[in-house]
């Protein structure tokens, strides 16, 4: 039985290796227990909305930050972002786009949809780890959530 109540970071990432590396980076800094990983947009929305697989989850417990990949099968990152920012109850959840794309149009559209940050995943693992750790630190420790 998974304990969803302590989830503070929702990681939406279709690449298992990227997900593993992200969680590894966070684990080094003791955030691991608070991370939940879903593989696509549908699961992400199910988790936040407490439906389907996540029906028993307490809807009042919102993640402190969503790390969201853009390019995913079925419902992609921009769709998830649109859903979250278009929902009155969820709008307050900080969403950080974490993607390989540094195409201008992705950046622009993400901010138009209301993302809180846009991070291009570095190819270099060390830079990547550093970026993830900084993100975690900022959104979980520094940032004051509503």
């Amino acid at each position, binding site marked *: 039985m998974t304990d969803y109540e302590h989830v503070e970071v929702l990681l939406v990432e279709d*690449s298992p*290796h*990227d997900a593993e*590396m992200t969680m*590894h980076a966070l684990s080094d800094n003791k955030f691991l227990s608070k991370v939940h990983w879903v593989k696509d947009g549908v699961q992400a929305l199910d988790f936040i909305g407490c439906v389907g697989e996540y029906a028993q989850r307490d809807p009042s417990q919102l993640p402190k930050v969503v790390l969201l990949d*853009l*390019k995913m099968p079925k419902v992609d990152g921009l769709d998830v972002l649109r859903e979250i920012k278009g929902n009155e109850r969820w709008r307050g959840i900080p969403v950080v786009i974490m*993607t*390989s*794309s*540094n*195409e201008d149009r992705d950046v622009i559209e993400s901010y138009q949809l209301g993302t809180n940050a846009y991070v291009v*995943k*570095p*190819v*270099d*693992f*060390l830079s*990547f*780890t550093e970026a993830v750790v900084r993100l975690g630190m900022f959104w979980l420790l520094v940032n004051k959530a509503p």
Partner: protein
Amino acid sequence: MNGGRSNAQPGVSLLETDLRSLRGQALLCVGLALLPTLLALASIWQLERETANAVRQAEASDSRLLASESLMQRLVDAETGVRGYLATHDRLFLDPYKSSVLVMPGLIEGFRVRRLHEPESVFAQSTLIADESQAQMTILGEILRTPDGRNSVAVPRALRRGKVIMDAIRRLIGPYQSRERTLIAERRAGAIADRAGLGYALAATLVLCIAASIAVVLFFAKRVVGRLATVIAKTERIAANQEVGVPLRGNDEIVAVDRAVHLMAIAIAARNADVVLSNESLNERNEELSDANKELETFSYSVSHDLRAPIRAIDGYSRRLQREYNGHLDVEGRRLLAVIQEEAGRMGELIDDLLEFSRLGRKEMKDGPVDMTVLAREVAAGEKNASGTNVSLAVGTLPHTRGDRALLRQVWQNLIANAVKYSSTQVEPVVTVSGSAEGRLSVYHVSDNGVGFDMKYAHKLFAVFQRLHSVDEFSGTGVGLAIVKRIVARHGGRAWATAEPSNGAIFSFSLPSGEPE
């Protein structure tokens, strides 16, 4: 041999002019206008002739009157002369007779000639006068020839006969003369009437001429101007891209113009259709192009996403291996891991450069004046700091240009960085930036005293991923010069290089001049 007569050229002969043509109609109208004038002229001529005839006849009558008076006078002179001689035997009295003898035959002969239109009775009288006059002259001649005339019995008898003849002549000549006088008066009066008629005829001709001319002008105005207005309206409709309308009927020059206008309208319509067609194909081509562009975008988007993720994994997992399993690896194992990480890093760079290059082709370009001296100096200063070498970097005064400042900065960045990189093996590396205005172009050069290259590879320099040195000698992906070429080309300029192995290289590019006009 030429068969038959060639067709008449237009306008060569009046007879061959088509009366349906405007020219033919014009000629016809002028002809119609001239016809009454010609008739009037003919009648004037006739009148004039008659008048002249009457005058001539009057003159002839005059001379006949004169001749009859003269005849009478001569007869009297001759008789008086003969009587005087008989009485005195002085030959001086014979002088009038002698001069009469000379003149009389001619006068008598005149009375024997019948004049034109002279009635038979009048001519009979005239002949009778001539006969009697001849007889009188014969009698007078006989008297003078009689020997010893004064005493002869024959002389008084002859004189008596002569008196009878003279009386007869006087009886004949009186009515004759009065008739001639009447004729003269009649003919004079006729001539005066004819002259008055001539004046009327002239006036009538003038009036007819004016009336005919006005009629011709009005007819042409109606026929020509009205239809010309129709044709003009058609050309205006063509200009306004409207329907031309119905062609004029007929066979004259205006109809020919109208036909030409219709042909022109058809040609214009055909050309318009062509333009529409080529516009359509242009639009299709544009759509294809924009489809291709979208495909390219999608492609580079995928490259950006999907090519990076595996590299990140390779790098990430090898680093975890290095860190978490360091104790299980010997020196060679650690070297192999380092190579994996290095190559993964290079792959990342290649992908980034490739994406950058593809983005350049699609990026919207800004346009504005660019001070190339300032821009090149900023870049040069940055490169000198970044390189950490003792390179001597000089930037001269450069001509201005127009374009996208950020993109042009990248051109300087790539060229100056290259120059610094390839001269870094020299003891005293020198990089010089210069430029000059050449007509409507600004030309810029970046020269170095570095390794240079063989000109036979020059054509490869500006292609993507083409390098003339191994990565061991000089680092780099081979995209920098391709980016330079693409930016310069998008500004309407050209990039080229000249070099010699081990003797430095000069990279040059031209751009449109940006000097204020």
